[in-house]
């Protein structure tokens, strides 16, 4: 998942999504929310993409010669990503089947083929962590708390940081998630603050739950939730008051 916070990022992440989908050979979702997609936003002009499109690991004659043979699901490089061929490229074809398959894309019911394939997918997921966009981080040395936000919650989160400083003298570090799977800067951020607030616009704190699944429990013990889910776009006051309450201070609304 790529998580844009502005129309400019939607543009950049759409381009990145194609590259990542081809590189990782996996579907990529650009999580553009309704607020971003249906309202009118200001933006800087979109820059022309200088980077060439990344077609990923397409097999060619030279690679085929080096490898000796073609196996559609063979992890030749250890990154979990095999080579692929496309129709009429002059290279061997394969049947992309819905049932169990071995590294050569043949039908199989053997348990070790299945384990080998799903383990390969786990390796690919680790590779994805090195390729997806890193979070945007603003550290506040000496601050006790950190705020994690994503998507269009960004603007309210920034404003809330200012309100916390002005009204209660509370400094906060800030991390804006820009992709899933989570990358190492997130764990680093969690370890630098005494308490971290994950700001989200859903009832159940889904991003925090996802973090709890993926990150070590000793990290998550300090992670709390700020949830806004009344159907309207989140505002800074909601975040500020929720943090002040959980910090044991009263908010502007008492």
């Amino acid at each position, binding site marked *: 998942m790529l998580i844009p916070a502005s129309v400019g990022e939607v543009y950049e992440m759409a381009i990145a999504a194609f590259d990542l989908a081809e590189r990782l050979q996996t579907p990529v979702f650009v999580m553009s929310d309704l607020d971003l997609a249906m309202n009118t936003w200001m933006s800087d*002009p*979109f820059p*022309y993409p200088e980077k*060439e*499109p990344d077609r990923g690991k397409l097999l060619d004659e030279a690679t085929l010669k080096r490898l000796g043979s073609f196996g559609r699901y063979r992890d030749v490089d250890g990154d979990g990503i095999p080579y692929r*061929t*496309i*129709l*009429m490229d*002059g290279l*061997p*074809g*394969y*049947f*992309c*089947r*819905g*049932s169990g398959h071995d590294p050569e894309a043949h*039908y199989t019911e053997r348990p070790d083929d299945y384990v080998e394939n799903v383990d390969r997918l786990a390796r690919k997921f680790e590779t994805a962590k090195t390729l997806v966009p890193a979070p945007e981080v603003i550290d506040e040395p000496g601050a006790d708390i950190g705020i994690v936000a994503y998507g269009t919650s960004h603007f309210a989160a920034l404003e809330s940081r200012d309100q916390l400083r002005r009204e209660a003298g509370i400094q906060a570090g800030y991390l804006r998630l820009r992709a899933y799977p989570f990358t190492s800067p997130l764990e680093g951020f969690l370890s630098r603050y005494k308490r971290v607030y994950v700001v989200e616009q859903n009832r159940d704190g889904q991003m925090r739950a996802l973090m709890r699944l993926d990150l070590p429990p000793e990290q998550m013990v300090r992670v709390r939730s700020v949830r806004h889910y009344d159907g309207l776009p989140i505002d800074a006051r909601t975040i500020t008051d929720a943090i002040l309450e959980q910090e044991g201070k009263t908010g502007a609304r008492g």
Partner: protein
Amino acid sequence: MATTEAPAPGKKVNRIGLEPLAYKGGKSTLCAGCGHNAISERLIEAFFEMGVEPSQVAKLSGIGCSSKSPAYFLGTSHGFNAVHGRMPSVGTGAVLANRKIIAVGISGDGDTGAIGIGQFVHLMRRNLPILYIVEDNGCYGLTKGQFSPTADLGSRLKTGVVNDLPPIDTCALAIELGASFVARSFSGDKKQLLAILKAALSHRGTAMIDVLSPCVTFNDHEGSTKSYSYVKDHDEPLGEVSFVPFFDDITVDYEPGSTTTVTMHDGSKLYLKKVAENYDPTHRAQALRLLRDTAERGVYATGILFVDSDRPNFVDLLNLVDEPLSMLPTERTRPSREALATIIERLR
């Protein structure tokens, strides 16, 4: 396990120098006697006789016993087993990405008539160049024999359950939606099915064929209207179907007046001899009438039901370049800086 038979032995080669063996696939794991195996055999023969290059073929399928069959023919060709009922969208993407491919989509009466009915509707409207086969046995074979939407009213399962919903006639639906080539056949009629498949490969749009293909395990009993015995007894061929590809120098003897000739876009000729009662396969309304009449009499009209070889196909409508999109270099596909700047200016 059943095996698909190779065509007649001998070192015969087709017009591109390939033997029948080049068109075979893996061993079938469908039931012995399954209609789908016969269809796979006819496909192997059709591709061989038409001299199709296997590396140019894209095999597509949904989910079901029908959709397993691409593994059993054209073993060296690319194939894609899509999710249930979604083969049309995948096929559309593939053909648009590379307009030179010869797409063959294998589906079933469940994959097309139930979960895939939405995608089927729009595929028929678009006239995408694809050979689309519904392997029709009136039941969900892979999941052990529940009624499918093509099961006839009053037909019975082995357990005695009676179907009380009227059937979807996929051919009538296709014709109604504007499909350009619609046929119905029977897996047990080798000659007719082979001729239809070859004509379909020559057609420049969607060639939709509903092939009655009995399920020996779940729907071949007394009370089924899709069993071998029922279909044989109730099959009313519209006439004898003959197909002469453009590269064959054959003269066909026929009596003018009793034969309808359709010239395909590539010059191939489709002959429909002794057509029933002045039936005209180029007349859409008449085809629908015929299907309604035969359904009411409880019989299956088989043969070429409707053909319009001039209708523009989806690739024509989209005005794609001649070269396959998937092979274009980035210099041809990336818009210029000026193009982006123009769009941005419009948004100021």
